[in-house]
């Protein structure tokens, strides 16, 4: 690791920093790794140096890091060296300065430790360990010798560790050890006793048949026993069994001396004696007599020893339970004791009682458990102790409850005390919880106890009887009453109570309990809460109630509505901030409800609340939010709504991944845009006309606008519909036919024409008519609406977006993808002016075809989708393309979409363009407002007649300019005529006309035809003329007659046409007059001369370019 190996340590200071590095670990230790074997060598030689003050720490260092410092490749030589060092140290005389007992003892300890932890018996040869044992035995073999008594004790400990590491290592010399143990009388005797005990323990646990009285084997030299090295370590050396008699004698000897042991020594001793007693069939009562008194000691370790003894020999310690319980309680009372032991003693007691409840004598249980009630917390007990004592009380009451379950009495504990009383008593010791702030420790402890008492017993949802029992218990009813009272009285406690409920809710076992509590609160709180500003402190609870699906939200909504009303009422200059803050909080709860409940369940209440807020709340932001919630509530289906409102928390049943980005917390969405995925969006997002066009051409004839600049009146030509024109260019060249009309005003007057009364009447009608037409240059023009549907395919959407298939987890509506906050922007090369964009808050994807079998959708082409069922409608968003045509011409509207998908990504791109047909532009003529309803048909007829006349090529009105609405612009009529022969039977024509042109019919003439149309019932409120007059005339004549044209000549284009006209005339049934207004200010007049087998349509218009479309339209209408 290190680039350069560090210098070898020499001075004590070097060694000290080295030691620090090793302890610290990581890189600091790593840098020494290259020196590992030589480090140990260096250390070992330093230990023997005379003048070296850092010897003991160095030895400890070797000990602690032997696994690093004694690598396996050089371990053998290093250990030899170590043993040699030890021998030198132990045998050198004490000189007070460089060799002292401390060093000798540490050397013994560390050498032993190193040999054990490097597992030298297996890794090296046994000789090292044997040499060590021999050395140590030499040390201990001088009982009662004065000065080195402590070193002997340490040597015994070393031997004991070796024996523990290699059981039965010393069993061969057990006899010697026993006699040494007998003779030793200094304070080191503890170590001798423990050593002997350990040797006996391993003999017994290995079932070694060996005589421990036999001292025939010499102590020194030490022979490494074969059973440690042998292949089957367990079996070898085993005879027929244990030498019980000798072992019992040894036990008797050992049990004589417990009083010389320190408490720690006693612990070690007892841990071995107990299994020995079992193995050797000793009377446990003997142990009881000998050791039970230790429970009265204030040394915690001794108490614990007794407890362990009890758990091993509980039968023998029968009837001692009371004393044990009493003692443990007393330990907890001892003020002089360290707190942790007081806490531990209560824990021991609970563990003890727990076991006693399981295994104890049935008769005794009650009286033992009762003792637990003796210990109420004391005033000056630390809170942790109070808490744990309260735990104990709860524990006992629960045990009592379990014991009394058979007898049926309701939770009567102690001396007739109920749990309720117990609990009330208990709470007094932390009584301050009521008025201290909710974060105070007292409060936490109090609620913790409440929790323990409530849930302590293992009630489970699997067992409904337990549930019911708890619900009916006095404690529960007390508890809920108490909680409600507390909420009302001490509002500061609300957060704690909420935390309490949360904790119950958070546990799968007690979830129902939390819900019950919330239900109770919902039931009891609302009637008692006073509506004022302080209600805010309950909002935390309301939030939980709102979250909970088991609680009907009606009550809470009612309360919140009242509160909103209160806020509105109290609003004033001082309370602005308050209104905002409280209003926002209320909306927050509404949001919680919307996220957690079925919308249908909430709808009524919450929409009322939101609507009220929208309308009356003083704060703008709150109003705004309320409005958006309301909007979403109405537009977005439940689950998606919940997903959108979710602010990141996980909802039940909603996968978090798809909703991790919430609708509101979207940040810089642009970066999510994926152009690849947006490219083909027209494949799966469709904007479709609701009413399909009749003319299904894939191209559109579009006229280049008549430019002002060149004033050329030529056709622009026919262009492919895909050809796009720069929008700006279009804007600049808005076809202002109207200006040409104006220009005409300025033109030199053409020769005057005669104007008779009829003409002036016509002019009158026309002036009136045009004065109603808005002039789009100066005011809002006439708008055309094209209803469309936006929909998208879930399947291809998911496919294209490459998202995970949501169906894997969800189903039905929930599985479908959705688009959020969609904006549709429109533009058109046609002279439609600027088209307003359209906003769709939410749209659900259309389920795959297979998911819902629907005949219409099977051929989901362009046509007939409008008749789709309601279910289908859920996947469509109605969109209206609204524009103000500058010129009545069909065209294409290009659609651009920008929308968000659930993961916050933006999709944007172009959709299929929407075709605008000429029929979209058909409007009824605008009527002046002063025309009464019943006079309308006549008015329409008048207008029709006037226009019919004006549009005739011989019209006298040609030079007249009609002032438009607003008075700034004027229009002139420049009429054109055309005819069209339709080879269809009369009834087919009437049917098609009724279907498509009914609104525009102004009159029907001819008895037969009138009958036909009138009784169809579709065409109403028009002028019916039953007189047969003129019907036998030819078309031109009749037309002129009808228009009351003063002077006209028959004008025919060619002979063929004329011939056919004559052919029809014979069976003529009547005429249908149709007046169509084409925004911005043009007209189409149709006069259909109906006969049995064909119909001649006379067409007149003041906008000649539209004739081409009309022709096509009529063909599509009638001939296909």
């Amino acid at each position, binding site marked *: 690791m290190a680039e350069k190996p560090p210098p070898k340590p020499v001075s004590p200071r070097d060694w000290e920093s080295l030691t620090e590095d090793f302890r610290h670990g990581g890189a600091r230790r790593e840098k020494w790794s290259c020196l590992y074997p030589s480090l140990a060598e260096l250390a070992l030689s330093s230990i023997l140096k005379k003048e070296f003050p850092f010897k003991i720490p160095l030895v400890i260092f070797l000990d602690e890091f032997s696994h690093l410092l004694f690598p396996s490749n050089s371990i053998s030589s290093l250990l030899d060296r170590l043993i040699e060092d030890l021998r030198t140290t132990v045998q050198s005389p004490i000189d007070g300065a460089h060799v002292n*007992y401390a060093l000798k003892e540490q050397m013994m300890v560390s050498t032993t430790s190193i040999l054990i932890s490097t597992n030298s018996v297996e890794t090296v040869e046994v000789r090292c360990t044997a040499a060590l044992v021999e050395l140590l035995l030499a040390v201990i073999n001088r009982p009662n010798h*004065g000065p080195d008594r402590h070193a002997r004790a340490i040597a015994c400990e070393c031997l004991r560790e070796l024996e523990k590491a290699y059981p039965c290592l010393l069993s061969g010399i057990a006899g010697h050890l026993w006699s040494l143990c007998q003779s030793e009388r200094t304070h080191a005797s503890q170590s001798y006793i423990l050593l002997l005990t350990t040797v006996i323990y391993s003999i017994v646990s290995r079932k070694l048949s060996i005589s421990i009285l036999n001292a025939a084997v010499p102590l020194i030299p030490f022979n490494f026993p074969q059973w440690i090295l042998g292949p089957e370590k367990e079996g070898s050396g085993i005879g027929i069994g244990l030498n019980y008699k000798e072992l019992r004698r040894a036990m008797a000897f050992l049990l004589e001396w417990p009083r010389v042991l320190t408490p720690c020594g006693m612990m070690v001793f007892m841990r071995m004696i107990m299994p020995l007693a079992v193995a050797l069939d000793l009377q446990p009562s003997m142990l009881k007599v000998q050791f039970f008194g230790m429970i009265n000691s204030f*040394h915690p370790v001794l108490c614990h020893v007794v407890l362990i003894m009890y758990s091993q020999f509980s039968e023998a310690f029968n009837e001692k339970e009371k004393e044990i319980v009493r003692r443990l309680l007393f330990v907890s009372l001892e003020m002089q004791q360290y707190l942790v032991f007081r806490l531990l003693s209560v824990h021991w007691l609970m563990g003890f009682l727990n076991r006693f409840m399981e295994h104890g004598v049935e008769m005794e249980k009650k009286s033992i458990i009762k003792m637990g009630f*003796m210990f109420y917390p004391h005033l000056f007990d630390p809170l942790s102790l109070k808490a744990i004592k309260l735990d104990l009380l709860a524990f006992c009451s629960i045990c009592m409850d379990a014991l009394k379950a058979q007898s049926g009495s309701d939770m009567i504990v102690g001396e007739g005390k109920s749990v309720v009383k117990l609990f009330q008593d208990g709470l007094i010791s932390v009584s301050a919880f009521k008025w201290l702030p909710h974060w105070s420790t007292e409060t*936490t402890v109090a609620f913790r106890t409440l929790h323990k008492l409530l849930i302590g017993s293992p009630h489970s949802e699997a067992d409904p009887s337990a549930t019911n029992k708890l619900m009916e218990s006095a404690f529960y009813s007390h508890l809920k009453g108490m909680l409600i009272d507390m909420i009302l009285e001490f509002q500061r406690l609300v957060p704690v109570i909420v935390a309490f409920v949360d904790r119950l809710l958070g546990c799968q076992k007690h979830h129902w309990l939390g819900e019950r509590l919330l239900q109770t609160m919902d039931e009891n709180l609302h009637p008692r809460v006073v509506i004022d500003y302080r209600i805010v402190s309950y909002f935390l609870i309301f939030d939980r109630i709102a979250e909970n699906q088991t609680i009907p939200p009606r009550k809470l909504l009612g309360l919140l509505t009242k509160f909103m009303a209160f806020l509105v009422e109290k609003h004033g200059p001082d309370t602005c901030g308050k209104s905002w803050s409280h209003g926002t909080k209320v909306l927050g709860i509404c949001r919680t409800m919307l996220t957690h409940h079925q919308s249908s369940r909430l709808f009524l209440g919450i929409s009322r609340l939101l609507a009220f807020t929208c309308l009356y709340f003083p704060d703008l932001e709150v109003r705004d939010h309320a409005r958006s919630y309301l909007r979403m509530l109405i537009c977005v289906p439940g689950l998606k709504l919940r997903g959108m409102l979710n602010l990141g928390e996980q909802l039940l049943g909603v996968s978090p991944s798809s909703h991790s980005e919430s609708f509101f917390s979207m940040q810089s969405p642009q970066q999510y845009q994926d152009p690849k995925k947006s490219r083909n969006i027209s494949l799966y997002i469709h904007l479709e006309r609701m009413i399909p066009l009749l003319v299904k051409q894939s191209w559109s004839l579009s006229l280049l606008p008549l430019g002002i600049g060149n004033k050329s009146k030529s056709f622009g030509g026919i262009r492919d519909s895909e050809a796009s024109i720069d929008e700006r260019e279009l804007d600049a060249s808005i076809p202002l036919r109207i200006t040409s009309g104006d220009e005409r005003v300025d033109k030199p007057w053409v020769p005057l024409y005669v104007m008779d009364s009829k003409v002036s009447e016509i002019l009158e009608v026309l002036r009136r008519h045009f004065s109603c037409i808005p002039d789009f240059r100066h005011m809002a023009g006439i708008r055309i609406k094209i209803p469309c549907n936006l929909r998208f395919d879930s399947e291809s959407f998911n496919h294209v977006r490459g998202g995970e298939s949501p169906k894997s987890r969800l189903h039905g509506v929930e599985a479908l993808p959705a688009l959020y906050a969609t904006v549709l922007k429109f533009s058109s090369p046609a002279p439609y002016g600027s088209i307003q964009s359209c906003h769709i808050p939410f749209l659900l994807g259309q389920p795959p075809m297979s998911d819902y079998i629907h005949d219409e959708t099977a051929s989901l082409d362009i046509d007939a989708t409008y008749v789709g069922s309601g279910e289908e409608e859920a996947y469509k968003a109605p969109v209206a393309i609204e524009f103000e045509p500058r010129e009545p011409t069909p065209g294409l509207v290009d659609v651009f979409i920008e929308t968000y998908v659930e993961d916050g990504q933006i999709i944007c791109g172009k959709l299929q363009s929407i075709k605008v047909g000429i029929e979209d532009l058909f409007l009824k003529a605008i009527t002046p407002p002063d025309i009464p309803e019943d006079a309308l048909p006549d008015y329409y007829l008048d207008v029709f007649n006037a226009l019919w006349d004006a549009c005739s090529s011989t019209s006298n009105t040609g030079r007249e300019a009609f002032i438009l609405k607003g008075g700034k612009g004027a229009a002139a009529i420049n009429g054109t005529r055309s005819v069209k022969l339709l080879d269809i039977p009369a009834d087919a024509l009437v049917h098609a006309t009724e279907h498509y042109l009914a609104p525009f019919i102004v009159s029907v003439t001819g008895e037969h035809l009138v009958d036909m149309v009138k009784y169809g019932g579709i065409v109403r409120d028009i002028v019916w003329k039953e007189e047969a007059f003129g019907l036998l005339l030819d078309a031109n004549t009749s037309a002129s007659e009808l228009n009351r044209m003063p002077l006209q000549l028959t004008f025919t284009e060619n002979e063929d046409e004329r011939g056919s006209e004559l052919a029809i005339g014979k069976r003529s049934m009547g005429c249908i007059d149709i007046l169509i207004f084409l925004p911005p200010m043009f007209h189409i007049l149709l006069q259909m001369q109906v006969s049995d087998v064909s119909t001649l349509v006379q067409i007149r218009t003041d906008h000649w370019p539209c004739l081409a479309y009309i022709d096509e339209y009529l063909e599509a209408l009638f001939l296909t």
Partner: protein
Amino acid sequence: MAGDCSIRAMWILNNLRAVVFSRRFPVVEKRWRAACQNENESSGDDPVKDTVFSSLPSDSELSAAFSERRTREGSVRGFGIRVPQSKEGSDSWVDDPITRHIVGFYINSEEEGENNLLWPLALHIKGPYCILILPSVEPKHVKAYARLCKRSDCGNAVMADENLSSLLLDLPSITGAFMVAYAIGDIVTGDVAEPEVVVSQSPSVGGLLDSLTGSIGISGISRAKPIAAPVASSAPSSAAAVGTLAPDVPKSGSRLLDKDALRSFISSAMPFGTPLDLSYSNIFSIKANGFSSLDIPPQDLKQPAWKPYLYKGKQRLLFTIHETLHAAMYDRDEIPDSLSVSGQINCRAELEGLPDVSFPLTGVSRSKIEVLSFHPCSQVPEQNVDKQALMFSPPLGNFVLMRYQATCSLGPPVKGFYQLSMVSEDEGAFLFKLHLMEGYKSPLTMEFCNVTMPFPRRRILSLDGTPSTGTVSNTEHSVEWKIITSGRGLSGKSIEATFPGTVRFAPWQTQRSTFFMSVLEGTMDDDSDDETENTNNMANTEEFLMEKMNKDLPPVDLEEPFSWLAYNYAKVSFKIVGASLSGISINPKSVSIYPTVKAPVELSSQVTSGDYILWNTLGKCPSAVNASVTQRFSNGGCQASMDKTY
């Protein structure tokens, strides 16, 4: 041999969270690893397997884990009980106050990966140091704990299959680890005082003057430098010094960690990680003095391990009954006053050889002793109702022979009331009316008596008022009234003292500590909304002020009995000598020593005040339902065995 009190490692951290001392015990560690291996082999695919940390962390890893826990748990000790901030898998998730003492760390190490649970660590905070002891337990216990602190349900529920209580009952090594932690703590801070034994040289003479001049505390006879010889070493010179007084060496609290002392203590007390003897004084006298060939062991007895040296010199036996009186004085009808005595008998037996001492305790029945517990060297007495005989084989030096809890057999030495009423937000009128030593007869002497009114959260501007007796002084945050100053003890009569006055405070300032910023952010905002509302509704100044002040009240540690800052009270401190208040006593004449030896027996008593609180009668005060133990056990009769089988 699992289950003995072995220790795998220990660390001492300073207040900068850096490890200043660490010690690992490879032999124990080897056993632990073997156990881990066994466990892994036996328990196939246990999900908790990975969470057990099978090796020992280095110092840096431990220090990192310590800091991490501190951040996670809010403080070094932690929340202790489950609070909203508790995280699953952390100690406070277990919801038991003992997790403030027995802690678990998550170790991130390079070798073993992340978040390995290291449990249990006995945490002891002493002075600037945090002592962490890692006892050896079985891997299955660690796993059990890991499950406990990940359990999704409501924490350590009682009667669950797996609970912390049963775990602790099964693990004496944790108990042992705490014993080690306390011993180490005393050493690192140099706080190795022995119990106090008071020598009164002329006990026959009573009265105030005598007890003042005569009683001299020889506290901490071996509190002298750790290296210094304790009382009864073999050297005759030091033995001679016993009669005179050992100088009270000033404690050096701020000294550097004495690593050598620590190392040598560890090598003797637990050479291989298993504690054998944690007596500091014994170990240091052995280290310092060693043994000479003159130290001859007793002939027919084994010398106990806890008594490495035998006393030689003039023989005598000293007892001091030391009682601490705790009281909560309410002066209200609905709450009874409570007085409790916690006492101990300290002893110093300067006796040669290994004698047994026995004596009957008198006054035990009268004084309603509730709890008795004894030094390990004593044979537990037969706890008859009238007579408690106690036998013990005394160790060297001063030791606590027994401890007890009792009720006060006399009336309260300071009786009366304290009233404080806030006349405005910043001014309070108070009145004391106290009776001292009512019904107390000679030789009971009150050496001094002070009354303190603490106002830790308010700054005192001025104080008006004169007491009927004694002197008054005030600091910024408290008022002290010295009723009886030392040197003018009160004996044989009672006095009455009154003290009316007013105290004026600086205007209350909101002191939002960092605690509120960090822990309670968010929750505080809500309150600010209601402030104006509250002002209007608050009826009186007192409540309003309290409301206002409580907003800044920090939560107390679980080691406190309650939030002291929330209350107004006066604390009384005094010292009474002459007899015990519980009525417990030793008759020097009936003390017998076996083998019989002539040794004078001296007895002294002193009573000091613990928490002796006069609650403001006009304010709020904490209380508790008192369940008297004695009454409940009176018919139970506890028969302790009288063991004499050695």
